[in-house]
């Protein structure tokens, strides 16, 4: 489509600007049809509807604890989940209702020993399958790494992690504050036992202080472009729609992952013992993004050499943390590569 002329652009900019000010152009998100198939406490398991499933085993995506899962199904046309369904995969999503004080004492073990194995059990039952392909996004990747390393009995055929932190020295300002003992977990955990969403939001904002203004400039510059505006508003809405973080997991994250940098060591204190990443023996894909400022590539990169699998692959993508799963560039470049790896490690029925 030809780019509009100067006057037309100004008219479009005015129209979209007025709609933005009136709050009228908020995009509809998470549109892919799905069914809730299992639930326990704040854990929910969704299965996405499809009449074109042809790959086995089913895919279970484990979402992060620090954000809302609709980023994986942001808009039709850019939805990561929509893409995988369209390619013939049977997709399940394990996500988390934002925690309340009842979840404040949840630990990594709560998720890894309880919710994730139970959700895998539900996936096997629903899909009448014997195995799953596990995908972890962001902190969900940490949970899936621990899951596979701690529970060899859980039938995971393949493991893929996306934008998953490993080397916490590379995780920026807030991580450095905790690593140097300048801050302790109790400095940010509130009276409910949770790390408030606001604190996490401020932590992410601090990673790139001028980003907010730059994004507004990009928005203004492209305000005439309906497609850009829709994508921008959806991502901007998601980025500010943070959730609180359970204090129990946060204390462990600070002590084990940030201060001991245990993932980089390959040995993570866990329960009464420890888990070793070298115990991950299934096919493994480490996908991370070159321009990711939330989980920098330098933080994710070491995972590739830390797992014990003989079948290890790496995808270094030209995008950012969000663009990775929700951007239009990702739809064109990143996803076909992810699809190829998943297809090569699945049975095509």
């Amino acid at each position: 489509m030809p780019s509009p002329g100067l006057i037309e652009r100004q008219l479009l900019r005015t129209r979209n600007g007025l709609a933005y000010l009136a709050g009228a152009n908020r995009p509809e998100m998470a549109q892919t049809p799905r069914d809730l198939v299992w639930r326990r406490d704040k854990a929910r398991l969704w299965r996405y509807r499809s009449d074109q499933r042809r790959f086995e085993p089913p895919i279970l995506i484990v979402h992060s604890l620090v954000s809302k899962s609709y980023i994986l199904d942001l808009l039709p046309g850019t939805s990561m989940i929509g893409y995988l369904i369209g390619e013939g995969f049977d997709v399940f999503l394990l996500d988390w209702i934002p925690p309340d004080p009842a979840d404040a004492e949840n630990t990594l073990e709560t998720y890894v020993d309880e919710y994730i194995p139970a959700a895998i059990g539900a996936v096997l039952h629903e899909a009448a399958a014997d195995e799953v392909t596990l995908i972890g996004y962001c902190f969900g990747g940490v949970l899936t790494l621990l899951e596979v390393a701690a529970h060899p009995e859980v039938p995971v055929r393949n493991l893929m992690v996306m934008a998953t932190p490993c080397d916490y020295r590379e995780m920026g300002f807030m991580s450095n504050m905790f690593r140097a003992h300048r801050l302790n977990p109790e400095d940010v955990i509130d009276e409910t036992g949770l790390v408030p969403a606001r604190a996490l939001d401020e932590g992410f904002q601090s990673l790139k202080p001028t980003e907010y203004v730059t994004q507004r400039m990009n928005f203004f510059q492209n305000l005439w472009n309906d497609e850009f505006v829709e994508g921008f508003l959806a991502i901007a809405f998601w980025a500010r729609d943070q959730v609180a973080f359970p204090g129990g997991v946060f204390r462990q994250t600070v002590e084990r992952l940030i201060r001991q940098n245990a993932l980089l060591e390959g040995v993570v204190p866990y329960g009464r013992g420890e888990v070793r990443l070298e115990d991950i023996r299934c096919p493994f894909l480490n996908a991370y993004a070159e321009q990711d400022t939330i989980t920098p590539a330098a933080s994710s990169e070491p995972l590739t050499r830390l797992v014990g699998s003989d079948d290890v692959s790496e995808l270094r993508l030209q995008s950012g943390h969000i663009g990775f799963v929700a951007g239009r560039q990702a739809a064109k470049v990143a996803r076909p590569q992810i699809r190829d790896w998943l297809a090569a490690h699945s049975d095509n029925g």
Partner: protein
Amino acid sequence: MTPLWRKAFDAIERPLAAGSEAWIQSETFMDLATHSIRIQRRMLHEMQHTTERWLHLWGWVSRGDVLRLSNQVASLERQVRDLRREADQRERPLLNGRRLG
């Protein structure tokens, strides 16, 4: 084509972004941020404590009272979860020798 105003913005923003990212990683900024976070927290605590005492003088409910109640309910919910977990462990059959669901 990039408009002039954007070129001007980028010319200012790029060095500013690089500078600010380096500055927030500096010892000085981290010291300032640490003190700022702790002072904010202490002030908030003092303010809430004072407000709570004042509200209690009039026999009114404070935010602290609601929080205490909410935490008690949360504690009860956790106990219920623990009991349910124990019951599940006893009742759930093994699936191919594995206990998954």
